C-alpha cells in the first residue's frame, strides 16, 4: 500500500520534474498547514489558546508510529487512529478544563503538553525515550501530504461555514451573549478544542511518516509557541490567512538559508510588530477571494469589492 502510493508519487514527481528537496519542503508545508488550520479554528475562531497542541501532535505521531512498526497496521488506518486518539484525549481534557477561565485554561494546556513530553521521555520501553522511536516507514510522500492538506482545508472550510462554525464565532465575539441566545458555549468550545487536536494529531502522524523517526523534543513547548506565532502572523479568524502564514513561515527560512540563525528572532519581531500595528495579522477576519484580488488589480475604483458583490 505504502509502496503503491510512493510509486505514484515518484511517477507524478518525475513527470513534473520535482526534485526530492522541493518534495520535502512541500511535505513540511503541508504538515504545518494542517497543524495551523487546527490552531486557526481554536484561536482565530473561538479565541481559546492552547499551548498544548504540540502534545497532541506527539500523541498522533507516536500512536501512528507504534501501530505501524509494532503492530503492522496499514498506515492510513494508523494515521486515522492517531488523529482520533489525539481528539479523544482533547475531548477528555477539555471536559475537565474548559470550564476554567482565560489564563487558567491556557496553563492547563501548557501543563498537559509538557506532561506528554516528559512521559514520552520517561517510558523508554514504550516510546524509545529521549533517543527517539526509529524505523517508521516513509509514507508521507509529497502527493499524499498535498492530498491530506487539501482535504484538511476543505473540511475546516466546511466546518467554519456551517452552523457550528458560526456558533464558535459568536462565542469568540461575546461568550455571555452567545449563551444568552442559547448556544451551549462549553460544548462548542470542547468541539473546537477536539477539532484542533484531531488536526494536530493528523499533522503529527504525517510528520512521523516524513521524518521516519520521532523524538519527544520535536514536540516541546517551542513547537506549540511556533504554531501560535504562525497563526497570529497569518491572521486570526481567517483560514486562508492561516494557510498563508504557514506557507510564509515554512518557505522563507528555506529561501533565506543564510539567515537561518535569525529565524526565530525574525518571528519574534514579526509577532510583536504585527500585534502592535496590524493586530489582525496578514489576512485577519477575511478570507482570500479571487474576485476581490481581481477588482483590486483592475484599479482603485472597487476598493473593497463591495460593488462587485
Amino acid at each position, binding site marked *: 500500500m505504502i509502496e503503491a502510493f510512493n510509486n505514484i508519487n515518484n511517477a507524478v514527481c518525475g513527470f513534473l520534474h520535482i526534485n526530492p528537496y522541493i518534495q520535502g519542503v512541500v511535505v513540511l508545508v503541508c504538515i504545518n498547514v494542517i497543524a495551523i488550520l487546527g490552531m486557526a479554528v481554536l484561536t482565530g475562531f473561538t479565541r481559546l489558546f492552547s499551548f498544548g497542541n504540540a502534545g497532541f501532535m506527539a500523541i498522533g505521531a507516536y500512536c501512528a508510529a507504534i501501530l505501524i512498526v509494532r503492530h503492522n497496521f496499514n498506515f492510513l488506518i494508523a494515521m486515522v487512529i492517531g488523529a482520533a486518539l489525539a481528539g479523544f484525549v482533547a475531548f477528555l481534557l477539555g471536559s475537565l478544563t474548559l470550564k476554567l477561565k482565560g489564563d487558567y485554561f491556557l*496553563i492547563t494546556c501548557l501543563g498537559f503538553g*509538557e506532561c506528554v513530553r516528559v512521559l514520552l521521555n520517561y517510558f523508554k520501553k514504550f516510546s524509545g525515550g529521549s533517543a527517539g522511536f526509529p524505523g517508521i516507514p516513509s509514507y508521507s510522500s509529497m502527493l499524499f501530504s498535498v492530498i491530506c492538506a487539501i482535504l484538511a482545508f476543505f473540511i475546516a472550510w466546511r466546518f467554519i461555514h456551517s452552523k457550528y462554525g458560526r456558533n464558535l464565532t459568536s462565542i469568540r465575539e461575546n461568550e455571555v451573549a452567545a449563551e444568552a441566545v442559547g448556544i451551549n458555549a462549553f460544548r462548542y468550545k470542547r468541539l473546537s478544542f477536539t477539532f484542533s487536536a484531531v488536526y494536530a494529531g493528523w499533522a503529527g502522524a504525517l510528520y512521523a511518516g516524513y521524518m521516519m523517526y520521532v523524538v519527544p523534543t520535536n514536540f516541546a513547548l517551542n513547537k506549540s509557541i511556533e504554531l501560535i506565532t504562525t497563526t497570529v502572523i497569518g491572521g486570526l479568524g481567517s483560514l486562508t490567512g492561516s494557510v498563508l502564514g504557514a506557507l510564509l513561515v515554512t518557505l522563507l527560512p528555506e529561501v533565506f538559508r543564510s539567515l537561518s540563525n535569525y529565524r526565530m528572532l525574525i518571528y519574534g519581531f514579526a509577532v510583536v510588530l504585527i500585534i502592535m500595528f496590524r493586530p489582525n495579522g496578514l489576512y485577519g477576519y477575511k478570507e482570500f477571494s479571487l474576485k476581490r484580488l481581481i477588482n483590486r488589480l483592475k484599479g482603485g475604483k472597487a476598493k473593497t469589492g463591495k460593488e462587485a458583490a
Partner: protein
Amino acid sequence: MFLQQLITGISIGGIYALLATGYSLIYSLLDFSNWAHGEFAMLGAYFAIVFANMVGLPFMLAALLGVCGGALISFLCEKLVYRHIRSTGAPNMFLMIGAMGLSTIFQQVANLVFTGQYRSFKFKLPVSTIEIAGAYLGVLDLISLVLTAVILVFLIYLINKTKFGLNVRAIACNAGAARVLGVRVDRSIASVFLLAGSLAGVAGILYGMKYNVFPTMGNIGLKAFVASVVGGLGSVPGAIVGSLLLGVLETFVSGYISSSLRDFFSFALLIVLLLVKPSGLFGVDVQDKA
C-alpha cells in the same frame, strides 16, 4: 536528609517566588500573563555576568547593575510595547501574544550575543556546607533564602502599607475609577513593571549563581508562572505560597521519586489543583465581563 531537601526546596521556591510575585502584580493590574517575565531574569543575570566577568567590576556592584538592567528592560517593554497595545483597545489576549513575541526576541538576542554557552560567575561564594542537626546545608542556599525572605517581606510592606501600594491596589480593583479619583494609572503601571523587573533580575542572578547563566534560563519563568497560577493569579501572597509549594514538591520528587518525572509532577499538581479549585489557592473568582 529530609531537612536538607526541605531547605533546598524552600530556597528554590524563594527564587520562583521572586518571579511569581512579578507575574501576579502585572496580572492584577493588566489582566494578562507577562510571558516575557522569565526573560527579564535571564537578561538581568547576563547584565550582571557582563559587568562582573568582562568589565571586572566588584560582584556586588555588578549584581546591582544586573538588577537595574532587568528593571530597565521590563520598563522599556511596558513603555514601548504593552502601552501601545493597550492604547489600541485590543483584547488582553493580544498583550499576551505580544509578550510571547518579546520573549522569543530576548531569548534569540541572548543566544546570538552570548552564544548558547553556559557561563558562571567568577565570584566565588563559600561553596562549603554547614552541618545543622545532621543536615548539610549549602551556604548559597541559605544566603539566597534569607535574601529572598527580606525582599518578599519588603514587597508585602510596599503593597500593603505605602501610598504606592495603595495606588496599585486601587488600579487592580478598578482602573477606571482609580483614574477618576486621581491615581496616575500609567505611571503606577510603569513603576510596577520596574519593580517586577528588578525582582526578576534578583531571581536571575540567584539562579545563575546556583546553576549557570544560559539563554534559555528564562524558562524558570514558566515554573514561576505555574506557581503564581497555583497560588491564584493576581494574588501576591498566593504567588509566594504557590512558589514555596512548587519548590518543595520539585525537590522532594527529584530526591525520592525520579528527577526526570519532576516536571510531570509539578504540572500534574497544577491541573489537579485547578480542577479542585478553579481560581487557585488564593485567587479571586474571575468573571467574564459582558
